[in-house]
């Protein structure tokens, strides 16, 4: 009677890695990574020169390898000139990766298991916020030092963080609520434009938007307001999709959301007062890495709090059986409304961040291409899961950047990868897994 049909866990390689690294807490990995990053700042340049690499590898060597492969492909297919010497960069890049990242990571992580666990346990005595903030601070330090090597890393990291927030906000509607919403780039567009209007329109003289309304000295601290303004307007627009969702599901709602996307894009293209097809440029450079990091962390925290609460799980109840949910006192209309508006809010915030990072926006950025990208991130990473959205956004972003030298192949590799994931894990890589903050920041006990 006590037996269930739950699948049993296990597997060979899982056992080995489990034994070696199962007891490393997050704190351990953070310390190890910090060590790697500092080590790279010290030894990266001389090492890469020694190995014959043109510059310090941008993404752990992956980009370097692909550049070489791209040159090779060019040579084979298009008879472009090929310098055989660059082939040595492939093993060099691998060596660099091992020396700068992999080895120190493994060594430090293993060595600091005991002290890291002790520290994590010690931190547990304080309210969760203390441990969380400490470890988030460490994470930020890692990012800070990592991007010091180059601006390219900086912008990629910024865009990746924004992608995480955007993907997670879509997961609320597509994963937790189980709809197929195509309107998310539209929400992002509204957020981008509205927050730009806020920051440029109010504080700067702009060719399109007119003269400044307030003085610039008050400007910087109103950036959060600009983001919130963008988010709220996106939420308001989400009503257009939320209200029909009371009566229809599935394909029909997908088309409604798609129509919404086209309407927003067309509207923006035609509003000359918003720059028309050329869009708006000249956003102030307020989207610094700490700002983005904090915003994304807050977003993830809000969203995770929501989906772990019973009110948040009502989204799942409505998805899996709406009639039963209603019979069990769940207000399904309110639930659907909240899902759309909340998801749209964070998409709008992500849009605001994007606008101030790129410092230009135009309607073409928020069309079918953006839709395909964000759908890929959500479904690749995993539905109904904060982990999934983080993994999906980071993977697809980094993969997209790393494959850039191979240009057009990028659009064969990424779709192919996604198809494989869909076939073998139809709901994504890490779906339905609950994100337990206490567990993540706490010590890892050996079982």
């Amino acid at each position, binding site marked *: 009677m006590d037996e269930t049909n739950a699948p049993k866990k296990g597997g060979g390689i899982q056992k080995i890695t489990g034994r070696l690294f199962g007891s490393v807490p997050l704190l351990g990995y953070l310390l190890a990574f910090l060590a790697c990053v500092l080590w790279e700042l010290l030894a990266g340049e001389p090492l890469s020169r020694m190995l014959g690499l043109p510059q310090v590898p941008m993404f752990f060597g992956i980009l370097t390898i692909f550049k070489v492969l791209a040159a090779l492909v060019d040579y084979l297919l298009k008879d472009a000139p090929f310098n055989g010497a660059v082939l040595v960069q492939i093993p060099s890049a691998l060596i660099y990766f091992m020396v700068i990242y992999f080895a120190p990571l493994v060594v430090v992580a293993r060595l600091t298991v005991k002290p890291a666990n002790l520290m994590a346990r010690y931190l547990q005595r304080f309210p969760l916020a203390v441990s969380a903030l400490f470890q988030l601070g460490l994470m930020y330090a890692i990012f800070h030092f990592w991007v010091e090597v180059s601006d390219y890393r900086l912008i990629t990291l910024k865009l990746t963080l924004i992608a995480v927030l955007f993907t997670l906000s879509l997961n609320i509607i597509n994963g937790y609520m189980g709809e197929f919403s195509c309107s998310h780039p539209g929400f992002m567009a509204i957020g981008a434009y509205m927050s730009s209007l806020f920051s440029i329109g109010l504080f700067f003289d702009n060719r399109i938007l007119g003269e400044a309304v307030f003085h610039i000295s008050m400007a910087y601290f109103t950036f959060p307001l600009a983001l919130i303004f963008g988010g709220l307007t996106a939420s308001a627009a989400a009503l257009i999709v939320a209200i029909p969702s009371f009566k229809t*599901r599935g394909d029909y709602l997908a*088309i409604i959301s798609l129509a919404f996307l086209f309407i927003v894009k067309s509207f923006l293209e035609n509003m000359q007062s918003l720059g028309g097809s050329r869009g708006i440029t000249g956003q102030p450079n307020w989207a610094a890495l700490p700002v983005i990091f904090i915003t994304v962390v807050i977003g993830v925290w809000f969203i995770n709090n929501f989906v772990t609460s019973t009110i948040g799980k009502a989204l799942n109840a409505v998805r899996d059986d709406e009639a039963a949910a209603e019979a069990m006192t769940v207000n399904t209309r309110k639930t659907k409304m909240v899902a759309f508006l909340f998801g749209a809010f964070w998409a709008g915030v992500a849009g605001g961040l994007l606008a101030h990072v790129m410092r230009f926006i135009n309607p073409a950025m928020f069309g079918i291409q953006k839709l395909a990208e964000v759908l890929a991130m959500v479904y690749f990473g995993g539905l109904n899961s904060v982990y999934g959205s983080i993994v999906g956004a980071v993977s697809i972003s980094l993969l997209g950047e790393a494959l850039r030298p191979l240009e*057009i192949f990028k*659009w064969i590799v990424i*779709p192919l990868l996604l198809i494989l994931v869909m*076939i073998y894990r139809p709901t994504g890589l890490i779906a339905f897994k609950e994100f337990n903050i206490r567990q993540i920041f706490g010590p890892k006990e050996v079982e």
Partner: protein
Amino acid sequence: MVGAYIGLGVALGLLALFGAGASAFLPGWVILVLTILISMFLTAFVGIIVERVGYRPLRDAPRASAAITGLMIGIILETANVLFLGGQRLKFPQLIKSVTYNIGGVFVTNKKIMIVLVSLALMLALHQFVTRTKWGMAMRAMAFDYVVVPLMGVPMNTIAAMTFAIGSALAAAAGILFGLAYPVLDPYMGVSFGWKAFVAAILGGRGSIMGACIAGFMLGFIEIMTVPAIQIVNRLFQLNIGSNLRDLIAYSIVLLILIFRPHGLFGQAYSAKLRL
């Protein structure tokens, strides 16, 4: 897109074989018909391969996963086109001479009449197939409940392949007709068409061929009519609205229709189970 490009290849091949112009061995319109038929046939094979590789493994998966797979396969096909044929635009050969008729002050070319007639004929044929033949019935049965259907002796894989074959063939025909009307082909020509077709199909109501037909015509009609309509409004009210509001107005109308008829124009009122 695939159909249009295959059609291009077929047409060029046929032209090379049978000559063109004054010393043609076969008249232009025969080549056109042959092109359409052969391309439909070949594209059907592409469709069958796509079904086998991308959709059959996902038969038990949530429908969203299949949708994503479809989207990705589309991207791969487009990218493959660019890879193998280069990113240039190709010109579709003129297979029939253009003749313009003046019907009561309206100028219509024979090409446009032919496109409309061929489309209607194909849609009618599809409607008959789906409603009157036993394979059509099997297709509709599979849409309702594909678990029980094989127990009734219906070969699911065959029917699924057939569905994709027919769909792809029709898409090929559409591509060739499009190539006739707008003779420049580029790898991404199918994108906006594909999404609009999706909108029209659902707007007409899931499962209704005639609904899709009517919705398709309606969508096209709205898209075209917004331009003169805006001009009239501009003149009447002394406004200066841009005539690029085509998409905006067309999709707003789509949205309104769906708000008031949540199951499409002719759709049956059963809710789609998302099966996550």
